[in-house]
């Protein structure tokens, strides 16, 4: 993983692109480098499969997690707690924003706009080219622009996270890479990482070695949870 100089890090993208898994993995890696890390679950779109479900895992790592009010309950209200403002006040912790999918999810960033203007941020745009509606450069660019417009922020880095979950192989990732490279060229935004499970990332050709970002999978459906079966 590359050196992370910026304090505020945002994960955005099409819903289902893998933002949450990446945000979890990124925060754990930063913590293990000795950084204090706070994760903000800012997802106002998804009712489940979200970072707040792995509160135990994050807290065990020493990561502070801020979740929307009523998360994991049956109250379907996208209400964000005032504690989130605290991450802009005390500057001793890196902050990872796990943003909800699409431009709808990115809208939640708008209210923090004045704070994002006060210090440099890194805004990742996560791409899974095996997702419908984000499988061509044109579709991806349309989505990226919409997210920028709704959040009033600029994407600084792309992540190629092309995958078919447990069926992913190296070809899927490399096909995705071609598409993400086209996006990168057209928009002049660098590709920071190529991510996937370790077995696939290990097979990346040498030219991509520095960009490989192996991840562990933390969100599982109930029939796949290891502690249960």
């Amino acid at each position, binding site marked *: 993983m590359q050196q992370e100089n910026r304090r505020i890090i945002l994960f955005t993208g099409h819903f289902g692109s893998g933002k949450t898994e990446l945000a979890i993995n990124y925060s754990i890696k930063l913590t293990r480098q000795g950084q204090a890390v706070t994760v903000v679950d800012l997802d106002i779109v998804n009712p*489940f499969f979200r970072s707040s479900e792995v509160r135990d895992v994050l807290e065990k790592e020493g990561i502070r997690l801020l979740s929307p009010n009523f998360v994991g309950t049956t109250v379907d209200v996208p209400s964000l707690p005032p504690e989130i403002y605290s991450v802009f006040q005390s500057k001793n912790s890196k902050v990872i924003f796990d943003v909800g999918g699409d431009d709808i999810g990115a809208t939640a960033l708008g209210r923090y706009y004045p704070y994002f203007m006060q210090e440099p941020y890194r805004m990742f745009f996560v791409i899974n080219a095996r997702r419908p509606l984000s499988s061509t450069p044109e579709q991806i660019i349309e989505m990226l622009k919409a997210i920028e417009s709704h959040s009033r922020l600029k994407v600084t880095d792309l992540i190629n996270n092309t995958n078919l979950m447990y069926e992913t192989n190296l070809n899927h990732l490399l096909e995705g890479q071609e598409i993400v490279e086209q996006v990168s060229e057209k928009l002049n935004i660098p590709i920071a990482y190529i991510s996937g499970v370790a077995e696939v990332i290990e097979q990346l050709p040498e030219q991509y070695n520095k960009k490989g970002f192996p991840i562990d999978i933390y969100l599982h459906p109930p029939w796949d949870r290891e502690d249960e079966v």
Partner: protein
Amino acid sequence: MSKVLMKGNEAIAEAAIQAGCRYFFGYPITPQNEIPAYMAKRLPEVGGCFIQAESEVSAINMVYGAAGAGARVMTSSSSPGISLKQEGLSYIAGAELPCVVVNMVRGGPGLGGIQPAQSDYFQATKGGGHGDYHLVVLAPSTIQEAVDLVMEGFDIADQYRNPVMILGDGMLGQMMEPVEFRPLSSKRELPPKTWATTGYTGDRPRNIINSLFIDPQALEEHVKRIYRKYEEIKKKEVKVECYNCEDAEIIVAAYGTTARIVKSVIQKAKREGMNVGLIRPISLWPFPTSTFEEWAQREHVKAFMSVEMSMGQMVEDVRLSVNGRKPVYFYGRTGGMVPEPNAILSEIKKVIGGVSR
């Protein structure tokens, strides 16, 4: 077409489009909002029409109209919204119109919650609305199966002129899996829609869509004719999966998401030396009665247990099918709680302990 990674809700919407559905009328509710959101984006691209109605009542009546005009049409909702659609569904069934309705079930009763549940089984399979009628109810347990069943569901609806319900749950709607959109394995002979109200031009008798009968005898004849159709559906459209039933000491009945949890329980039971089977109804109506009858007659099967995300609804159909031949037990969680594999296993152990003594 190559595989793509999709959320259950999106996959269901795309499957409908691939099946020729060009009209969608709905009203938002969690956890199925990705269906209307996807339809709103995709339908204009394929020359279709998406309308967010002012209510569920309005949406189902738009479906009634489009189906009457012979269009392939779908609506989707989750439990409280499906309750609102019941009057319309009864009218559609009475007027014998084809359509597909998706229910991504959440916890109830009342406004309930937004987490996955299976407590709309009675509503889906026993009528829901008023009068003598049935929906064909299909319950996928994977996203690929959801895709395949939605596509086949449109054909079943057209073939029998009857509404088809896809009964999922919040988990199936929200989770992601790789899927493929492939042509149906069995091609059906679909009758031309000569009854559709497409505009009178004088070259055929006028078509009238109606569910009102002034003469009680005519209504009885109408209902009896619909019931002959249901008999045919019961003969031809039962779908069921039997898993690990050979030599099973106890057979679990479960559908949808719960069936997937039960499958991982069965593997764990096997490692602990227990033989547990699963009968997974895929069509909840028509119910796979004869499959339960057959296994109930096997000597190695000591008991049945229905596992549901409800207080016990499908278990009644299991009991009717097993018909006293073997004891039928029940384990369930409700209100949006998903049964945990270890809890199911310990219930199975209790039953095995009880029946083999």
